[in-house]
């Protein structure tokens, strides 16, 4: 210590130490620990949120090897923003970016789709007629929207004949908003909202669309002129976590939303503005509508369903990627891991789930490459800011067995809040962007 320099008071030194620590933890620097050297060729299928997050994380922490990202889509979509577009709050361009802008250096991007997976031979066939061998595979393809399973329906109908569907992309979300505007401008009519009977990504979206449409109808001052009905294929259920399910059903009762359970949307006659629902008794009934929000049945993409990587038995058989729900490692092919909407786990089909899954998969892949036991476990964390009207929301966060998992002790997981709405509107996209870069 310099004897001529006065000693700093303890308070000032502690403050400096704290600020330095805060600055270091806030600094967008790569993690320094946990790097793994390997020569294994890692192939990641999928250029969505999960694929890009994994590419960034693995490139930063695995050295000496080749990493290939496979996926044709050049445009990247911030999917959690679709409901904001369909509610008339955001323009389409707010959710658009390019795949290339999220790609880390040192990752080969094959702009082609996978047409076949040969897990036994560790080989992929691509749409550009090439074959790709892998040592370790990360399946992050996202899920497939099976609109064709609804008779008479095709995605081209979205935006016509009073048909909307928030899931089909930003253009479809904008078209959905326009259809809702058209309904409101009619001054009266019937709006029907539906739910599919398969696991679905962002399971809160069908509920959010109902709530935001109710807000728009109330704002028009003609709410009483409109009949709003929700059709669920499940018995007294629209959401898998009881506390939120009960809240939504109670609120809809207060808002005079008709609730029809055990009715699955099976067909649409777009020209006649009629939807057909099949009840628990197997009988079909027709419902006339002026606006209908369609939620398609979902599954893993066909290329995964037709491969040996799909679940062979149980609730996810034939439809979703077979992984251990905790380690995210394939249960029969240990050199295969899954992240994102494609995996067959009880929960975990939101962007927020990817935020938790990606570090788990990364740690377990590093351990696998080092020949060590897999240390990380995914707890099923899923989050959905459940919009209950335009301007307020509930921060629903939960994991396996529907256990509530609030991130912030000061925000109640069951109270409607403007702060949560602000988080949805202002903070989630930055959080998503940080996740794509593998920073959180």
């Amino acid at each position, binding site marked *: 210590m310099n004897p001529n320099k006065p000693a700093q008071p303890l308070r000032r030194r502690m403050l400096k130490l704290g600020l330095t620590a805060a600055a270091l*933890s806030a600094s967008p620097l790569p993690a320094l620990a946990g790097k793994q050297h390997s020569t294994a060729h890692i192939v990641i299928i999928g250029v969505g949120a999960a694929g890009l997050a994994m590419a960034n994380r693995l490139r930063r922490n695995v050295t000496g090897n080749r990493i290939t990202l496979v996926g044709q889509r050049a445009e990247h979509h911030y999917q959690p923003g679709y409901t904001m577009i369909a509610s008339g*709050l955001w323009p389409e361009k707010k959710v658009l970016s390019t795949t290339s802008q999220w790609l880390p250096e040192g990752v080969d991007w094959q702009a082609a789709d996978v047409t076949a997976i040969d897990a036994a031979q560790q080989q992929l066939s691509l749409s550009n007629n090439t074959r790709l061998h892998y040592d370790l595979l990360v399946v992050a393809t996202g899920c497939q929207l099976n609109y064709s399973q609804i008779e008479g329906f095709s995605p081209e109908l979205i935006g016509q004949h009073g048909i909307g569907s928030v899931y089909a992309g930003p253009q479809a979300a904008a078209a959905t908003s326009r259809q809702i505007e058209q309904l409101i401008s009619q001054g009266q009519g019937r709006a029907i909202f539906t739910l599919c009977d398969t696991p679905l990504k962002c399971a809160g979206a069908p509920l959010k669309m109902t709530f935001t449409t109710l807000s728009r109808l109330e704002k028009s001052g003609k709410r009483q002129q409109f009949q709003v009905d929700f059709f669920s294929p499940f018995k007294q259920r629209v959401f898998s976590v009881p506390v939120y399910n009960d809240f939504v059903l109670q609120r809809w009762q207060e808002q005079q939303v008709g609730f029809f359970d055990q009715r699955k949307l099976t067909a649409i006659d777009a020209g006649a503005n009629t939807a057909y629902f099949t009840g628990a008794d197997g009988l079909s009934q027709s419902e006339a509508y002026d606006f209908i929000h369609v939620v398609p049945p979902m599954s893993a993409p066909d290329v995964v369903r037709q491969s040996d990587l799909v679940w062979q038995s149980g609730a996810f058989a034939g439809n979703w990627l077979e992984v251990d729900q905790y380690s995210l490692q394939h249960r029969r092919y240990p050199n295969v891991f899954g992240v994102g909407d494609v995996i067959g786990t009880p929960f975990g089909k939101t962007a927020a789930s990817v935020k938790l899954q990606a570090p788990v998969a990364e740690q377990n892949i590093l351990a696998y490459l080092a020949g060590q036991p897999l240390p990380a476990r995914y707890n099923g964390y899923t989050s959905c800011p459940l919009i209950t*009207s335009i301007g307020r929301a509930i921060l629903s966060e939960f994991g396996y067995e529907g256990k509530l998992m609030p*991130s912030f002790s000061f925000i109640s997981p069951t109270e409607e809040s403007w702060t949560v709405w602000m988080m949805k509107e202002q903070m989630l996209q930055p959080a998503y962007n940080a996740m794509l870069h593998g920073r959180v």
Partner: protein
Amino acid sequence: MTFSGVMMIMWYALQPWLWLLALLLVALLLSYGFGRRNPGKPRKTLWLLAVIAGLIAMLVAPALSHSQLSYVATWPDKAALAAIGLGVACYVALLLAPWLRR
């Protein structure tokens, strides 16, 4: 969520607004550059203007976020709104202090 995770998200959230923060900082520095040549105690009007600006910010903040004042219901909502009002009031007081001296 970890502290570093929250700070990282804040950093990503602020990035599109760095130009605005820089502009506000420049305005503050210019104001103080002027103020150094005009010594004196702040007038009462300064505090009144700061309070009015803070209150206006609190009233319009929900509407600017596509929400409404009646949805500010929980204590974190009220704390966030108070923080917005306080922040705007402090900034206005600092900005105008060099100009409103006796």
